[in-house]
């Protein structure tokens, strides 16, 4: 993937994330039955990242334990959504590609067997927990 494409994609993803967050925050959507997850609509089983909107909103309300209980992946999303716009902005202003280099390095890191296997297990465990919770 090229640098330009990555930055564009990340920006679009972040913007969509913020719009979705604002929409749900003011409409109280997670609790009124509006679900966006297609996987859940088709199978009635929650997907590994179901509940992350509720997790982020709990965190915004200051409830860290609640957000962990909804879905720990929400915290990763918060970190990405908070850091990446600043990082992209910094790279554009300074004419650098630090984010792109870090992304490439992170990709290589995740492809190692001893990193990928535990990561897959964690995702599966979280998925099982999601189904158990009945999010």
């Amino acid at each position: 993937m090229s640098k330009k494409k990555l930055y564009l994609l990340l920006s679009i993803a972040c913007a969509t994330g913020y719009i979705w967050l604002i929409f749900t925050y003011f409409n109280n959507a997670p609790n009124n039955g509006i679900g966006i997850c297609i996987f859940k609509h088709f199978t009635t089983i929650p997907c590994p990242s179901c509940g992350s909107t509720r997790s982020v909103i709990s965190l915004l309300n200051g409830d860290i334990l609640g957000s962990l209980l909804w879905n720990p992946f929400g915290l990763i999303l918060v970190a990405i959504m908070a850091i990446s716009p600043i990082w992209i902005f910094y790279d554009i202003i300074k004419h650098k590609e630090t984010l792109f280099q870090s992304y490439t390095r992170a990709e290589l890191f995740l492809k190692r067997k001893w990193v990928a296997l535990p990561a897959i297990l964690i995702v599966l465990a979280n998925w099982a927990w999601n189904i158990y919770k009945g999010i």
Partner: protein
Amino acid sequence: MEAQKVDMFIMTNAKFFGSYQINAIRERLLALDDSKWAMISTLQLKDPTTSLIVSLLAGGLGIDRFIIGDTGLGVGKLLTCGGLGIWAIIDWFLIQEATREKNMQKIQQLLF
């Protein structure tokens, strides 16, 4: 390399690449040294049809992206329910071309 070998390679592997790339690959292969044939012929290429099937079945979890080696995008799709479902649907149409692009990158390391 011999034209016969190259044509055989092209015939068996044409489906892994975009039609606009085939000519360039053929020319590079013809100019290539014979010693690289073993490496070229044992190259592990991903089938675009397989990744389309995976994308249709498990695209919402990002598994299609993981399979073709786009780990970063795979994580992105996994953490966002397939990009709120929209990205997953867009990828049904993009994944085959993305797979061919990845295959091209793989063979390019040997060709150039």
